[in-house]
Structures are given as structure tokens and as C-alpha cells.
């Protein structure tokens, strides 16, 4: 019999956070670092909702949803501002090439 539990979600969330942090350290590209940050963010939201849902306390269940709701809203604001700043830097020739690995460094 296959027994796969909700514990798998914790493992998935941990792996997502780890992969995201690894990507932030590994990549030199500004956009790639932002994407890695978003992967980490997805893992954190998953972990928060899992913890909130398994407590069984109604207040904490609602609080988890509340926190994640706020987090998603703020993440969208962060994405739009950071991407716009990167585009601006690219247009102003502060960045050489946006699709290569050397975005963050001027040669």
C-alpha cells in the first residue's frame, strides 16, 4: 500500500527554499536572482500554509491565509518594481547584456 502523507509538502517546501537560496548564491544574473527569490517565496508560502492548516486551530488557520495573502500582494509589488529597475538600468546602459550571466557586473 502506498502511504504518502502531507509530510511530503514539508519536504517539497524545504527543497524549494533550498533551491531558491542556492540559485541566489549560484547565479550572477539579476533577473535570475529575482526568480530564485520567487522560488524561495513559493516554498515559504507552502510551509506557512502547511503549518497553519495542520494546527487545527481556527484562528491560526485564518492567520496563515492572511499572512500568505499579504505576502503574495507584496511579492507582486516587489516583482514589478525590481523588474522595472532592471529594465531602466538596461536602457541606461548600466547593464551590458540582460540575457547573459554577467548582468550584474560591468566589464
Amino acid at each position: 500500500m502506498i502511504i504518502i502523507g502531507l509530510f511530503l509538502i514539508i519536504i517539497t517546501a524545504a527543497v524549494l527554499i533550498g533551491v531558491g537560496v542556492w540559485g541566489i548564491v549560484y547565479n550572477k544574473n539579476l533577473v535570475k536572482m529575482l526568480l530564485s527569490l520567487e522560488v524561495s517565496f513559493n516554498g515559504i508560502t507552502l510551509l506557512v500554509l502547511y503549518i497553519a492548516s495542520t494546527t487545527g486551530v481556527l484562528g491560526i488557520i485564518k492567520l496563515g491565509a492572511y499572512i500568505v495573502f499579504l505576502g503574495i500582494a507584496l511579492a507582486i509589488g516587489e516583482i514589478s518594481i525590481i523588474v522595472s529597475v532592471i529594465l531602466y538600468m538596461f536602457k541606461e546602459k548600466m547593464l551590458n547584456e540582460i540575457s547573459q550571466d554577467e548582468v550584474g557586473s560591468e566589464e
Partner: protein
Amino acid sequence: MSPLLEIFASSVVTLGSPFLDIALLVLSVASIIFAYLTVTYKSLVYSSIFLAFVGLVNAAFFMILGYPLIAFVQLIIYVGSGVLFIIISISMLKEPKLTFRPNIYSWVIMLFIFVLIVVIGISVGIAPSELTYLGIFPAVDYLVKYWFSILLLVLALSMALIVSIAVSRGERE
């Protein structure tokens, strides 16, 4: 049994249906693979698309955990606007050569997604009475409950939109 093993055993809660358990396993593996591809893929556009897939899988997780509203928000706002914004912004800078070349892999992936949706749909088995929460009245209820979050969301998105337009135009004086 060691205490650590007891904690692990108490944390393992099956979902009741083997179909849903298998779907959970598949979703976990897919999420990890997409996350890895997001971080390591060379092309930024494809990397963003993989991030959108991570968001989609996460929305499925939220649905399984019992948060349909958050799943909808994740789908509509995060994947639908945020990640799409990244994709469009990046593809405007340097036009990638996106060509549609259906090969065996695309058909396999399409079949996989189809089977996954069917498995999840069969295993969840929403009863007709449970469909009522999709109506308009609970939505109003959510608006009343989470009014502060929604207010912050509107303010944050408005501010982000204004800043984005201003920065993207890059006009001085």
C-alpha cells in the same frame, strides 16, 4: 521507537484516497523539477515560464491543503500578473526565437498533464453541495474578513504600477 521517528510518524497523514496521494507525490516531484529548471535554465524567458509552473503547482498544493481562496489568488495574481509581467518585460528587451515545434516530448508532457488533471479530478470528487462556496456570497464574506489585506493589495499594486510605468518610460524632467 525514537522520539524523532514518532514525530515523523505522527506527521504522516494520508489523504484517504490513494489517487490523491499519488497526485501529491507527482505534484511534489513536478514542483521540485520546475524549481530546479527555473534556477538553472539558460534562457530567462523559459526560466520565467518554469517559475509560472512552480506557481501553478503551488496553487494545487494550496487547494489540497484547503485554501481555495489563496489558490485562486496565487493563480490569478501571482501567476497571471506577476510572472507574466516578468516574461513580457524580458521578452520585450531581446526577442527570443520562440518557435512551436511539436515533438514527442511535448506530446508526452501534454498527456502527463491531462492524466494528472483527471486523477486529481477523480480523487477530489467535489460534491454538488460543496460547490456553493464558489458563489458570490462567500466572496463578499471574504471581502469583509480580509478587507485590510485587500486594501494593502490594492495600494501595493497601484503603487507598483505607477512606479513601473514611471521607471520604464525613464523620462527625466
